[in-house]
């Protein structure tokens, strides 16, 4: 009832009835084509430079990045990061095949649990879907192998991202997502740096409710596919 009331009130205010069929068709067509608006030129670069821009922007937003050449290097990069930060060698890992295939056994001191994060987890390792150079933003769509809680509950989030998955603008990441997922995943987080708040005296403090540290292990040369 309220539904009809609201739609009716909107149409009355706009001084028309429901849109005629041809206009509805045009709007449906616009939805299907989802045209782009002006996109800032800053990310229109060769791919290697897009990756560099991504890294610069992540660091500007208080994230950190370690670059490694091959999947085999990831466990060592994770362990080294934990050591330099004086963090315990205990991680909760996204149950993603790409991460599973990495040689974690070469780091026997690393204690690994797979699955979603719990409140007691200090460090999570997430699979990065895309990096957006424009603002140093990670795109993290939810899936059974990419639980959302990994982005939220741990004090430190480490994201393993292929350099090949870095794109220039948000629009390019949406196109990839549409092509690969078909429909919208339940949750898509765009994450730019670690959690923060400026609510106390409008002065920035890092580490509000989400992770205090965001570390990205960037995998592969930027020009490798």
């Amino acid at each position, binding site marked *: 009832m*309220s*539904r009809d*009331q*609201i739609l009716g*009130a*909107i*149409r009355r*205010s*706009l*001084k028309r009835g*429901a*849109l005629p069929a041809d*206009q509805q068709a*045009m*709007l449906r*067509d*616009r*939805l299907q*084509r*989802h*045209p782009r*608006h*002006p996109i*800032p*030129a*800053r990310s229109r670069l060769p791919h290697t430079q897009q990756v560099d821009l991504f890294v610069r922007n992540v660091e500007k937003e208080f994230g950190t990045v370690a670059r490694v050449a091959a999947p085999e290097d990831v466990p060592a990069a994770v362990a080294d990061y934990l050591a330099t930060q004086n963090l315990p060698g205990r991680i909760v890992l996204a*149950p993603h095949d790409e991460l599973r295939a990495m040689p974690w056994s070469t780091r026997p001191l690393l204690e690994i649990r797979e699955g979603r994060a719990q409140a007691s987890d200090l460090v999570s390792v997430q699979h990065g879907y895309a990096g957006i150079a*424009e*603002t140093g933003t990670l795109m993290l769509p*939810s899936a*059974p192998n990419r*639980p*959302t*809680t990994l982005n*939220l509950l741990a004090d430190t989030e480490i994201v393993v991202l292929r350099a090949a998955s870095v794109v220039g603008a*948000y629009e390019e990441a949406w196109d990839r997502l549409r092509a690969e997922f078909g*429909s*919208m*995943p*339940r*949750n*898509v*987080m*765009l*994450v*730019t740096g670690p*959690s*923060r*708040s*400026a*609510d*106390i*005296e*409008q002065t920035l*403090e890092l*580490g*509000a*409710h*989400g*992770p205090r540290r965001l570390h990205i292990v960037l995998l592969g040369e930027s020009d490798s596919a």
Partner: protein
Amino acid sequence: MHIATSPAFKENASKALSNAGLQKALARSGPSFIARRAAAVAALPEFEALRDAARDIKNHALANLDFYLETYERNVLESGGKVHWCTTADEARAAVLSICQAAGAKTVTKGKSMIGEEIAINDHLEAHGITPVETDLGEYIIQLRHELPSHIIAPAFHLNLEDWEEAFRQAHTDLPADRTFHERRDILIEARTKLRSSFLAADVGITGANFLVAETGSSVIVTNEGNGDLTQTLPRIHIVLASIEKCVPTLEDTVSLLRVLARSATGQDFSVYTTFSTGARRPGDLDGPEEYHVVLIDNGRSAMLGTEFQDMLRCIRCAACMNHCPVYGAVGGHAYGWVYPGPMGSVLTPGLIGVDKAGHLPNASTFCGKCESVCPVRIPLPGLMRHWREREFERHLVPSAVRANLGIWAWFARRPRLYRLATRAAAFGLGLAGRRRGRFSRLPLAAGWTAGRDLPAPEGDTFFARYAREKRSGTLQ
């Protein structure tokens, strides 16, 4: 329901001017917002073009709002969510309560939501034995202090470190006596620890929405703390509160609006967490809510469509207008007496609670034009305030003495303290005026009073016309 003190704007403003703590907070925080936005804008050469795009997107969405809301609803249903259409605040409160009661909820965590403030959902839940816990740091202390937010993106704008300490010591009774709060960091850690347990215990999480995306049926929230994400991810049920004008067509439209939102608000290029939620937990998912409800609220919006106030519905709640307003900068947000302060509040509040209660607010302006010049969706705020003033005159709500004086505008202009604060803002004519007190009728500012209306052409027609044209000429991409 919050009792609006907007009718007492004058008294509120007087009190605000002599409130030392408030003045300290305003002097500290005001200039930094302005500087941060300016830096973000300077770093993006396309910013003005993006503002045009943002305005056009919202105009297009509003001109076809019925179509996009129906599309949005269909996609929410398809992704396993539910939409509860609510004409009034009462209906919205009842809808939220019944979802909570059906779930047997005892505690509810909340992300920051201005529509939540507007419908005063916390009071309603509390009255029915359900405990709401605000999780945005600023909202949390506002809740502890039983106040309204004084700013739409920085609810605790009016507070200083000592106020935080006092509120925490009172509310967190388990604090050891020797626990110190000398640093902002100490406050943050205490809040993080306390609220963690609330996140884990809550049965329902309630968030607002910056946007609703018709194409996908998604609700979008934007935060820096991550509290909104914990709120919508951990509990069994997620409720989204959103007003109807939040609906935009596509993901491309949404990111175009996001490009101007954070820059205008906090001066960030992008907020830390921008999250698109679409329906309930999917098969195989290891986390996420099992139920996803959208409480879709009109509460006065549809009546603004098709009037000169339709432009106001483009507002994306960035707060740039209040950050740059000399009046807000002098008296803070509480003086405005209700949920929405500053220039956007002066236009929106009379539309939502009635010009009889909020008729003073459109006068709380110097017509310096700064708000319009920074608004990312180019809302002609001073012009809309003038429209309210004209309506107010027509309705003879204005006492004759006020009428003669051009109301609170003149009142403001005669306050030397306010002068000094106000003249700090650039492009502000009152500094000049201050030197010839009492002779306002001769000032160019008064021209603002009589300037004519400039109704924007409805964008919907141009879209269809353009579409047909482009289709014919084959330029449609």
